[in-house]
């Protein structure tokens, strides 16, 4: 058993210090992170499992998310729905979320109710019953969820197709919610196996933030989680994306009103980068493009040239595997996708050829300083940051280094990563070209509504 107590310091720019993060490890390998925040008599408790869509393979996509739904369907001790009922009775809020890299469950409660959360989470870590009958219904719920989020949302379909084209090998090609056909063919025995493999204390991080005393939380965690035996999780193959050898272009034809464009480039993330400053330079580059209303995409494309109705850059610094650096946009009226793409590519060229101004860089750094303070207004957000970093294997300490690393990024570094990664042969382009909303084509959404039974 080890116990780490790490004090952390902010950089010179902001006076007040964050509360300490207290890190503990139980004998069974479970990590516990606690941060005190005594502003209100409340606590948030989150349990993070190292499993998500990027752990899945073809044929069982969506299994992590469907299992997350089933985690509310009862253990030997507490029947289906009882978890939610007990939390509600104690005035709590609870929910769960799944992404490519993690599955997490949380409760927000008045501080004295924390033991209730621990007891219930410890119970469902190993004792889920996964009844067949509940599974059949919940699979239908998730199929409805997929229709709501993806099938009936043309931009979501485009984003899903974009990922499947940009990534040929990386598991990031699969949607978190799963492909429809995989969902229709998942069986409860698949979920039982998935659950046994991944739901274990040594594959979990418990994060608690709020009006609590860290050593008491540790004692409480030992009491509830301490006796759960460790289970060695499976080793999954890395499935690294091979270098892209030429531009890929795909078109999505769906009933829609508005065209849409996504451009993406393979880039490293903090976890995979060989050169540590590169991901931070990419992070700042995303800020130069769309961090605030004064950033380049809103200032130059939405306001200046008025080619885009909206435009954004996206980058996931804290992903577990290498990601895409994306630019996505909707054309303004009287502009087409070609104009829009040329305008976005012109911005890329500028990044490759010219140095970002000191003023732009200072602006981004000022926003980071301010957000350091603003983020402390939400204990949920604080817990979430710690949970993500710990779960992808970067360690929660990474968030402390963030400011310093961003501060160190230079205009030259931004130009270097632009030249290195924002290349045509490393690019995938997806366009949504709307079909009329009253058209009927084979393969259109309504044809997928047939029940699996």
């Amino acid at each position, binding site marked *: 058993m080890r116990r780490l107590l790490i004090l952390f310091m902010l950089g010179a720019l902001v006076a007040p210090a964050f509360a300490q993060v207290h890190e503990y490890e139980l004998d069974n390998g479970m990590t516990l992170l606690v941060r005190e925040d005594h502003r209100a008599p409340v606590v948030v408790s989150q349990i993070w499992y190292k499993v998500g869509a990027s752990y899945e393979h073809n044929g069982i996509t969506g299994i992590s998310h469907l299992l997350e*739904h089933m985690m509310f369907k009862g253990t030997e001790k507490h029947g289906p729905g009882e978890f939610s009922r007990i939390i509600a009775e104690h005035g709590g809020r609870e929910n769960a979320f799944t992404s490519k890299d993690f599955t997490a469950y949380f409760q927000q409660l008045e501080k004295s109710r924390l033991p209730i959360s621990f007891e219930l989470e410890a119970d469902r870590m190993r004792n889920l019953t996964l009844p067949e009958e509940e599974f059949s219904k919940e699979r239908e719920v998730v199929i409805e969820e997929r229709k709501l989020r993806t099938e009936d949302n043309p931009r979501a379909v485009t984003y899903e197709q974009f990922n499947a084209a940009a990534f040929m090998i990386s598991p990031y090609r699969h949607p978190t919610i799963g492909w429809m056909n995989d969902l229709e063919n998942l069986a409860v025995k698949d979920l039982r196996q998935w659950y046994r493999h991944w739901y274990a204390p040594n594959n979990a991080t418990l994060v608690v933030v709020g009006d609590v005393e860290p050593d008491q939380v540790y004692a409480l965690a030992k009491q509830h989680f301490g006796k759960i035996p460790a289970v060695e999780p499976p080793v999954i193959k890395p499935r690294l994306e091979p270098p892209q050898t030429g531009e890929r272009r795909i078109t999505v034809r769906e009933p829609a009103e508005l065209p849409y464009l996504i451009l993406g480039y393979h880039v490293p993330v903090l976890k995979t980068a060989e050169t540590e400053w590169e991901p931070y330079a990419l992070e700042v580059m995303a800020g130069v493009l769309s961090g605030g209303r004064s950033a380049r995409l809103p200032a130059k494309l939405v306001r200046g040239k008025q080619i885009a109705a909206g435009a954004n850059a996206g980058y996931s*610094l804290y992903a577990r595997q290498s990601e895409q650096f994306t630019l996505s946009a909707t054309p303004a009226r009287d502009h087409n996708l070609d104009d829009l793409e040329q305008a976005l590519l012109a911005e890329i060229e500028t990044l490759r050829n010219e140095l970002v101004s000191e003023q732009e860089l200072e602006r981004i750094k000022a926003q980071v300083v301010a957000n350091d303070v603003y983020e402390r207004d939400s204990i949920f957000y604080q817990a979430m940051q710690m949970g993500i970093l710990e779960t992808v294997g970067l360690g929660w300490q990474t968030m402390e280094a963030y400011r310093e690393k961003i501060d160190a990024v230079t205009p030259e570094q931004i130009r270097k990563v632009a030249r290195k990664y924002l290349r045509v042969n490393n690019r995938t382009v997806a366009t949504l070209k709307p079909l009329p909303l009253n058209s009927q084509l084979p393969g259109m959404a309504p044809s997928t509504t047939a029940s699996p039974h």
Partner: protein
Amino acid sequence: MKRLNWKITTAVIVIVALTFTVARLDRPGDIDSADSSSSLAIQSWKTDNGARVVFVPADELPMVDVRVVFDAGSARDGELPGLARMTAGMLNEGAGDWDTDELAKRFDDIGANYSASAKRDMAAFSLRTLVDKPLREQALSTFASILGEPTFPREAFNRVRRNTLVSLQNKKQSPGDLAEDKFYKELFGEHPYATPVSGEEASVKAIQRADLRAFYKEHMVASNAVVAIVGKLSREQAEALAEQVTGKLESGEPAPSLPEVEPLPEAKRVDLSHPSAQTHILVGQPGMRRGDRDYFSLYVGNHILGGSGFGSRIMETIREDRGLAYSSYSYFVPQRVNGAFIMGLQTSNKQTEQALGLLQEVLVKFIDEGPTEEELQHAKKNITGGFPLRIDSNKDIVEYLAMIGFYDLPHDYLDTFNDNVEDITAADIREAFQRRIDPEKLLTVTVGNGNSSE
């Protein structure tokens, strides 16, 4: 640059198991509850030109939140739906001597966050800034200029109008948006709540800069404004802040009363065809107002009916027992005058009639019998026990303050809320629902793959 926000909203697709129905609401409208041990010491006063101010000091973090709300929502659009929202959205396109880029930089340079929005009752302008004096001064002088001396530049106006038309087009590819717009149109008929806050294609095309100027001049005035402040400020600093941000506003006149909402004369069903895999179903009637005498009976009752996610009757019937939908809910939208009462879900097209039948059945039974004693006790525990969560951040508190100020709710509204909830009986709920919701006169709107009824 919000670092984790990127990860959550743009890159990582986070899928949530339960339904956040609360997110659909005018937020402060549904987060009412209080506990005397957690009361907020609300201070209030008026600025020299007549704006009402509500303030709660919060010393823990070196930041300030300001939220200024005007009685200038889409209910004041008149003949030009979309006018209120476009006016609110145009204020930071030019103000005083600053153009849109300069305004954007003045906030971004110091990491201040500005946002503007309009709903049916109110237009809201929010600012979050660090409290350090030079930063605060820059943020507040910019905010004051935006609120008090907007210039509505011609070029920006043309762009904003074109992009508003794009956003209206976007709604046409969303069955959920289509259903909501149709529902409000049918529910409110000739009442100003009937039109979409974002406007309609014809009206947005017809709006001129002069309309925005006139709307601004009439409605965005001090006597029509509430300034809510939470942050690391003394009372004197808060007073100076309120004077500064409202300093350039005209005193003006309070907005006139809105007309009352008429009940629906008879049941009505409207079906719209859309090439979607699911049909979106909305069922409802006019509901209640802020400060309604039935507020607590309907609020607690709705919690049990479909307002609390898992455990509520609608969620259990539709999702838990049958797997018919991912999201199913009911809610009231308490407004200046009676807002909507809505039950809703989305289900695969072929299940539409089954789900709709169940929704109606659940409502009729609830109105007939009211909640069980067990359901009521459970709901009370959830509502009252969860109070501390509702005011655990400055962001939550400033929204509450603006809501309390805007709707003239008593300053002990939060302190007495739990007692008011505890006082409600099952008979109160049954009686209030019987009097307020008539299951024979429901409006039903569906949007999906069926045939259109019109």
